[in-house]
């Protein structure tokens, strides 16, 4: 092992010495923090490790707030003429960044066979949101999917098999009915299931639509299918969880307090991101399970999370150095370590074969569920004028969930708005 390290170190030094950046190239790097844990410390540590192995390149990580704040900062800096060299931003920001002419595809940097193999090494599910028009604009880094967490103790109390999560929609409804508890005055003290709907309900809704075997947008990001009958049907199912079946609390359910509801045993099953895994592991005072989302016509979930983007206003040396850094940080061992530290899904298959990851999964099998679900994953909703087109859907979903509109009317309105916005991009 030691010998290998030294050899690798020597090789790296030799390479570094022979290339352009020996005189010192600096790459600035914006990153958001969207999950709990000492993320800033981990990132600073990674940058320091990289610098040690690659003398001559300086990596300057800059914490830039939430995802939303990060894109605001990156685009504002870009307009002011001083964007970062690379940045981790939502995979769904791809079209926005292209439309703002802020980024370049990674393709022109990728010339050698190992480089090409590297791009192919990521899970295809994650690449769906990273490529368009035959080019690769984003490199998957901190990615997630939606999974179902369930409370095994409450399952046992309700007379259900604690080790068998619901596999289909109808099973989820049946279980949830058994898990919903009412007190004498008709107040619900424990709900069966909870799917949050505040802020970005479209993301969880994509679970329902994918399971109902329908997609929400085309590959070019220029058309949405919000009013497709199967989409309306999927929304009907979501609405019925509280309206018809009475197993989910009515109205809009807050994303942020959903894990807390779960810890407090106010809900027996919840849908939320795999990114919450470490949080649940630390805070749940009971035995819990993690499962793939139940199947409708098929299984399905959207992916989510952040990619590396390369900004246009950078020098050729900076781009070379950036590629080197991104390749380094997404190497199997580092992807595995990052996944373990944060709860994100390690982005490539070979990361899951590393000794580090195999050992982790043996002790904590719940961690592998997100990986196994990836084969059913689809791209997260993303189009041109993304935030506006997505807002149209969010507003429609909340209108239906609060009973202001029928699912059909809500989705027709959302589609009309999306059509108005996207028409300009189709020609």
């Amino acid at each position: 092992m030691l010998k290998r390290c030294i050899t690798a170190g020597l090789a790296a030094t030799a390479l570094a010495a022979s290339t352009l950046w020996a005189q010192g190239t600096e790459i600035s790097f914006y990153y958001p923090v969207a999950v709990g844990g000492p993320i800033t410390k981990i990132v600073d540590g990674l940058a320091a490790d990289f610098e040690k192995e690659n003398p001559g390149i300086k990596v300057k990580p800059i914490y830039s707030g939430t995802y939303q704040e990060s894109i605001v900062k990156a685009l504002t800096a870009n307009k002011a003429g001083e964007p970062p060299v690379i940045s981790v931003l939502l995979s769904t920001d791809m079209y926005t960044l292209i439309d703002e002419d802020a980024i370049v595809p990674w393709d022109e940097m990728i010339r050698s066979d190992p480089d090409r193999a590297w791009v192919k090494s990521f899970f295809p599910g994650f690449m769906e949101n990273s490529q368009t028009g035959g080019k690769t604009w984003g490199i998957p880094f901190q990615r997630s999917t939606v999974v179902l967490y369930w409370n095994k103790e409450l399952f046992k109390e309700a007379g259900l098999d604690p080790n068998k999560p619901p596999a289909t929609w109808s099973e989820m409804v049946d279980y949830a009915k058994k898990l919903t508890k009412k007190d004498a005055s008709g107040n619900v003290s424990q709900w069966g299931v909870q799917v949050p709907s505040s802020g970005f309900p479209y993301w969880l809704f994509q679970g329902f639509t994918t399971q109902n075997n329908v997609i929400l947008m085309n590959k070019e990001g220029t058309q949405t299918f919000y009013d497709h009958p199967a989409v309306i049907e999927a929304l009907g199912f979501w609405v019925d969880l509280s309206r018809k079946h009475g197993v989910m609390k009515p109205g809009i359910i807050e994303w942020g307090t959903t894990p807390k509801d779960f810890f407090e045993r106010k809900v027996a099953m919840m849908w939320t991101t795999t990114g919450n895994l470490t949080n649940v592991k630390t805070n749940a005072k009971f035995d819990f399970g993690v499962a793939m989302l139940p199947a409708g016509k098929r299984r399905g979930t959207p992916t989510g999370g952040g990619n590396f983007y390369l900004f246009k206003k950078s020098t050729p040396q900076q781009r070379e150095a950036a590629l080197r850094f991104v390749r380094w940080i997404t190497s199997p061992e580092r992807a595995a370590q990052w996944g373990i530290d944060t709860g994100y899904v390690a982005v490539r298959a070979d990361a899951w074969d590393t000794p580090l990851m195999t050992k982790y999964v043996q002790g904590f099998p719940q961690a592998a569920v997100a990986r196994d679900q990836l084969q059913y994953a689809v791209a997260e909703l993303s189009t041109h004028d993304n935030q506006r087109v997505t807002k149209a859907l969010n507003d429609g979903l909340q209108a239906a969930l609060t009973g202001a509109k029928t699912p059909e009317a809500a989705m027709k309105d959302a589609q009309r708005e999306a059509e108005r916005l996207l028409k300009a991009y189709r020609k």
Partner: protein
Amino acid sequence: MKNRVAAQVHGWLLLLPAAVLLAAFTHYPAVATLWNSFYSTAKPNRPSAFSGLDNYREMANDPVFWQSLTNNLWFALGTIPVSIALALLMAAWVNGKLRGRAFLRLAYFVPTVLPMIAVANIWLFFFTPQYGLLEQLTGLIGVPNQYWLGSRETALGCLIVVTVWKEAGFFMIFYLAAFQSISPALYEAAALEGAGRWTVFRRITFPLLMPTTLFVLVNAVINSFRLVDHIVVMTKGGPDNTTSLLLYYIYEVAFKFWDAGYASALTMVLLVLLAGAAILQFGFLERRIHYR
């Protein structure tokens, strides 16, 4: 003569730093915003172009804009009178001689000191269904579960409550200062005349507090259009835009949709609204106020 010119120059020089700041950070942006509102937003395939009143026409047809505006008026109507009345009441109380007065004053003032984001996060848990503080209290008296932030009927009301809670203490401080500047001789005279408490308040205290009330009112109006931090934390404008206020919508259009032209047009509306309110307050109300 020469002296007078020197005095003039001197005067202007003294004003210069403030004037430069004001021009650079207030007047120029306002004019630039007006200018931008007549232009379309640049897209990669079509650069920014003069579009006349297009942005304003789009606004007239934008249901979210109208909803945000209506919400904002309700929000103003809900926060301004209540927070001022509450501030007056609290000031009157902690102005009296009672034990633990300093502590009470501090307690009322604390919400003002806390950052709005932190406050909103705390309130988020107060409003949590089932086990939130509010639910635990209403549960004791047998009220059924409520979904405060999650339903269209109550969400805006919840934000109003948070805002009142946050603001009243701040306004209280001004009233407290005003109370203490009212001459005790007036009250003694009233006592000699045998005036009742209500008369004393109506004829002495309230009129003498009017300058403070105007100041507080101006601040309350501005804040009702300016405070949106808690929306970001608590509802993000949801459910279905029922808590979207004008400034929050401007933020969304400008920094989520990157539509600078339309955001400028929206900002002009906000500017005109606030300017209108200021003119009304200073032009009309001020004349009816007794200053010493």
